[in-house]
């Protein structure tokens, strides 16, 4: 049971809330309060756009505890538009192939159940291939 941890992380997990450095404008995710670029203090919250592209990826067949229900699934290192690299599951792949450079967007999904079927549901970010907008007027 990790209820306090789930609760504490909900902003960054639900909507990619990180930080922006007030000194050099670098965007930080996950938030760590110290800018890795200039070493200054960076505590200002910043909500990422959720857009990025696949930097690298792998398929997980032997899932860690709590994620067995989803296996096999693809995990990717996603390079966000604003710079940072984020590790996350890819979802809604259907028959779509994943390649390095595939444009993706953040969606909030059910990550797992904390414990058994009586436990709390844990939600958080995943990425999916960017939805094709075919019906623009």
């Amino acid at each position, binding site marked *: 049971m990790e209820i306090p941890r789930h609760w504490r992380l*909900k*902003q960054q997990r*639900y*909507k990619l809330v990180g930080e922006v450095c007030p000194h050099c404008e670098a965007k930080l995710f996950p938030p760590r309060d110290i800018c890795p670029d200039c070493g200054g203090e960076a505590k200002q919250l910043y*909500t990422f756009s959720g857009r990025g592209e696949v930097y690298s990826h792998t398929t997980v067949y032997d899932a860690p505890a709590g994620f067995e*229900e*989803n296996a096999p699934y693809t995990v990717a290192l996603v390079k966000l538009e604003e710079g940072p690299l984020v590790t996350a*599951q890819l*979802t*809604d792949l*259907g*028959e779509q192939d994943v390649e390095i450079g595939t444009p993706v967007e953040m*969606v*909030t*999904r*059910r*990550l797992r159940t904390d414990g058994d079927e009586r436990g709390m*549901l844990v*939600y958080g970010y*995943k990425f999916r291939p960017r*939805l*094709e*907008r*075919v*019906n*623009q*007027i």
Partner: protein
Amino acid sequence: MSDQKLLKPGNPVGIVGYGAYVPRYRLPAKEVARIWTDGVGGLPVKEKAVAGIDEDVATMSIEAARNALARSDIDPDQLRAVWVGSESHPYAVKPTSTIVAEAIGAVPDVQAADWQFACKAGTEAMVAAIGFVGSGMAPYAMAIGMDIAQGKPGDALEYTAAAGGAAYLLGAAEESLAVINATYSYVTDTPDFWRRAYQKYPEHGQRFTGEPAYFAHITQAAKELMTAMGTTSDDYKYAVFHQPNAKFPQRAGKMLGFTSEQIEPGLLVPLIGNTYAGAAIIGLSAVLDIAEPGDRILLVSFGSGAGSDAFDIEITGAVDERRDRAPKTQDYIARRTEIDYATYSRYRGKLVMK
């Protein structure tokens, strides 16, 4: 006085933003028939939308609500209500609406609640949101209708019970892309469909679901609204009805004097199935995607148990500039991966694992 039955707010209210959501996967009705009837018999729809293994009413509502916000000019912290109508809330006790409100950035200065009235839980939330905004209590309110409908394996409902819905951000009429002129609600105690506590799948009153339930409530609600508004079917460019299958809304439309040209743009059930609390209002979102300023729309939901909410809606000039800011309903329908019954069983938790 017939117009005394209308629900009309003190201050005019409209739709400031809207957003649809349909999951990626599709289960063809003929695949359900292959398993249960050897492929014999007519099919109520072509296929239905099925949610992925990591989706539920909270995650689907979050995406629709983000789309609605993208079409508005407001910040999420200006919302004073986030209301989610569904009959498939992920928790028995713990609101879906707090998860959605947190994820879209509407917390903490916000009213949050889950609504329940079978397939009209979404329009129920919309009518309440009209009151919330139209009374001056709140500048903006988000009302969502979303479902991952449950059909008992082998039951007639399994062909159609689908996943999807829409979110509506309501605010002052002058900021709106569509003004809601008035609504009218028609409700009786009618036992056409129910699910008792701790039961996994709903029961339905077989043939009882048609005449005394669906048709009586939809047509009464539509007629009362049109009488009070002084309108006829000719005054509306589009009509959208709750759509449990393809036939019911087409027949209800005909009974009320609507042509298939008026009904078709909002008739999504053949391609996505019955999305329950989402069904009527995702039909509306498909119409808002294409409607022109000045067009008038009649929307009538139906919820078992039973009741209908009827809406008289008029498109404003703001629609053209806002609708391209988020994916269209048809964009989601076009994103389609067909699955078989085995994959469906796995995605929807129908396999016994322990």
